[in-house]
């Protein structure tokens, strides 16, 4: 659907722009879904494979998000967190940022810095403080003091700050929180073990093991609460989509809701329902696209679409049969081919054509006894199929020659 532009580098790791306020964006559900996957760690290539969206849709959404400055596609190194002050995260705060207000009693430069910092509050704690993940307490404290001098509300005591007053509080609270948790060895260890070495600031942290000290307790509570809040948001979105019979969107939202709050039983039934509808719709769509590609001779694309369709409806007989043939003939993937063909036969055991295809795939794989069995079935079901008869003959000869070919 998108005109091909210059080839894209799928090894690029998309990053959320530091400066975008998610609450104010207008996004399509697909874009929002994709954005929720953009974590500064996952490469474009991996995003395409994540599922839930086609690779083309991923590309289209990423391009759209990048054009609007919501996602950055510069090839940054995900494993090297940008240090503060180095400003390796490009920001979109041009001189015309509408939030800047020269009439306030805080210099515009400081406003810009505050906005930039605010956009980073969901980053891992050590990035907020601008230190390396293994920084010691002395270094942490030094960074904390330096940032405090800049962002503590007392710096602007009794000044007219407009909306920046609340921003200042928010930023300082986060700085203090980052310092408090990073300088507590126990809390830090928890964060490390729970997110594979990358202490995260926000809801990205999946779960912490139970601990009774206040720090981890409040951390746990905060994370859990944040995730439950998100879950409910997704759930509401999902319900709205169901009401409008937008089943695909509904299923996506509900899947996210369950991912955020797996314990909530309320989500399960609507999710199952929406998923069923969604799969039906998606499968039909994919099959249509696959058929079209097939007609045009774009067999590789066609195969991929059939595979997508079978993810949604694994027991669609024709799609299985088509996928089997394409896997065998185009991809040369005999194992996949056998799976699809076998499934087609399993669902509708009395279609000669499917039996024959399965036989041909077995034969191609050198499993002549299995092939012979399938061809026998095919000939029994359709005695007029000359091709099948011929294949049976050949296979019998081969099976005798290679007596060891089992299943």
């Amino acid at each position, binding site marked *: 659907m998108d005109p091909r532009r210059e080839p894209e580098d799928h090894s690029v790791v998309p990053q959320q722009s530091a400066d975008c306020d998610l609450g104010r964006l207008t996004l399509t559900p697909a874009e929002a879904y994709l954005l929720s996957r953009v974590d500064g760690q996952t490469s474009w290539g991996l995003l395409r494979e994540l599922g839930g969206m086609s690779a083309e849709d991923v590309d289209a959404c990423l391009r759209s998000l990048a054009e609007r400055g919501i996602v950055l596609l510069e090839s940054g190194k995900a494993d090297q967190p940008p240090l503060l002050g180095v400003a390796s995260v490009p920001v979109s705060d041009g001189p015309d940022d509408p939030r800047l207000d020269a009439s306030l009693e805080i210099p515009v430069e400081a406003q810009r810095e505050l906005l930039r910092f605010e956009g980073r509050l969901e980053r891992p704690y050590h990035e907020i403080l601008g230190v390396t993940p293994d920084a010691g307490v002395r270094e942490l404290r030094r960074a904390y003091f330096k940032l405090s*001098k800049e962002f503590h509300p007392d710096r602007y005591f009794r000044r007219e700050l407009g909306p920046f007053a609340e921003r200042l509080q928010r930023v300082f609270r986060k700085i203090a929180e980052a310092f408090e948790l990073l300088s507590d060895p126990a809390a830090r260890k928890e964060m490390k073990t729970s997110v594979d070495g990358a202490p995260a600031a926000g809801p990205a942290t999946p779960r912490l093991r139970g601990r009774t000290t206040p720090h981890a307790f409040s951390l746990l509570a905060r994370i859990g609460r944040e995730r439950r809040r998100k879950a409910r948001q997704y759930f509401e979105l999902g319900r709205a989509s169901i009401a409008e019979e937008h089943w695909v969107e509904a299923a996506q939202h509900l899947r996210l809701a369950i991912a955020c709050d797996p314990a909530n039983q309320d989500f399960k039934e609507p999710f199952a329902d929406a998923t069923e509808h969604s799969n039906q719709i998606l499968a039909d769509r994919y099959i249509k696209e696959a058929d079209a590609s097939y007609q045009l001779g774009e067999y590789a694309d066609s195969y991929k679409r059939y595979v997508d369709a079978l993810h949604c409806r694994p027991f669609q007989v024709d799609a299985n049969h088509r996928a089997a043939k394409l896997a065998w003939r185009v991809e040369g993937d005999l194992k996949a081919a056998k799976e699809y063909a076998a499934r087609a036969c399993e669902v509708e055991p009395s279609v000669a054509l499917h039996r024959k295809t399965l036989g041909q795939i077995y034969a191609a794989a050198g499993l002549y006894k299995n092939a012979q069995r399938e061809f026998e079935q095919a000939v029994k079901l359709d005695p007029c199929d000359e091709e099948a008869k011929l294949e049976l003959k050949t296979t019998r000869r081969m099976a005798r020659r290679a007596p060891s070919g089992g299943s």
Partner: protein
Amino acid sequence: MGHVIGIDLGTTNSCVATMENGQPTVIPNAGGYKTTPSMFAVSEDGKRLVGHMAKRQAITNCTGTVYGVKRLIGRRFDSDEVQKTVELAPYEVIRGSNDDARLQLAGKTFTCPEIAAIILREMKRVAQEYVGEPVDEAVVTVPAYFNDAQRQCTKDAGKIAGLEILRIINEPTAAALAYGFGRSDEETIAIYDLGGGTFDISILSMGDGVVEVLATNGNTFLGGEDFDRRLVDHLNTWFVDNEAIDLSVDTMAMQRLKDAAEKAKCDLSSRDVTEINLPFIATDERGPRHLNVELTRDTLEALCHDLVSQSLKTCEACMRDAKVTPDQVDRVILVGGQTRMPFLQTAVAEFFGKRPHKGVNPDEVVAVGAALQGQALTADEKDLLLLDVTPLSLGIATFGGRFAALIERNTTVPVRRSHIFTTTRDNQRDVKVRVLQGENEVAAENDLLGEFVLSGIKTAPKGELEIEVSFDIDANGIVNVSARDVATGLEQSITVNAASTLSDEEIQRIIEENPPDAIALKV
């Protein structure tokens, strides 16, 4: 920008400082003293006296002279502390209309903030005479362990005195600011503050002009006056043994004993033995009786060593909170007149494994710190920053009368914390949120700061609803509490205005009754 002053409103003495050419200066009063007694008196002919003038006539007019009002401010009349004062003080303490403690002087009733205001106004006057222009902004210090109500009453006192209180800060924190002024070393310091009425210990970390409070703890029942009281009891016992007369029923005699004890205690900081000579302290059928006794430093130490041990126990708790061991403390700073006691200095040195720092004046350092904070808040150049903490845990009362703390004590402000609570009865229609401050697990043992009701929540079986309670403390220490029904978004909140013992109308009335110049007395 006009002058901002820092006031150390002490239990026994107060001190005022300001910034002069970038340097903190302690301002002497007209008598040349750098501290002024926190005393107020109404003489028999109705004249109002404050400071040294009040102290000088305190013996002869003991029922008309108030001291130590800081022990009463913001407290309920029934509290132990107030009851203790009722028992000991020669002046009359009565129950106020809000169950607060009020003072009865020469037939007139005074609220505690009113008395504190008179002392603040005196300090303001001292400062104005020194700088030669009106002063109307101040930073005032309070003991770290003052709760919200006590701080609020101190603010009310400022309002009555015609001072805008820019910030209330903790005394030990102020001392640390004063110590840290002009230093850029990274240090962990301990402030051991044993003043007249209260004991505070704070562990702070500093560097690069930033002072961060790691933990603070204290004991409002421990101060220099307790040392005095031990001595007074000792002297009275001696008198009972030797003269068979109990002086404790005679307020005038008690006042003399108290003054003598205080003086003897100070003498024993520099000498091994002192003489207490109180002629004509009592009379009986034998004629006038005199108290004349020799007191040694050993006796004083024997009488008071447990008070020192008590303070060190509090130090231990504070170090635990700060996650610091004594050997990690780079510097120990002593604040408060009582820390001049050699025995105490030795005990503290032993505890921390190092000699205390001698570079600050224990009587003036707190006011200096307050002046520095005033400067830090109002000046354009910000080279000093205080990262203060909440001294007491804040939370709500939960099922079964338990206390659930949302913000632990020693949390840096500004801060926001929230937690999900749930209902305890089926189809509960409203939830009462009681905001408490304190450290006790039993809700009723903590101070109630305010309460509100979140009503009209969704009906549901117990335990199903999620009520999110959020606490928000801003840099000024103002607490905002909200409760939200997560499912419906229904929300209710209050700004905790402390359980101020005075309403705005009352403050206004007091201001009108006490025009600023009414008690502008010379020392």
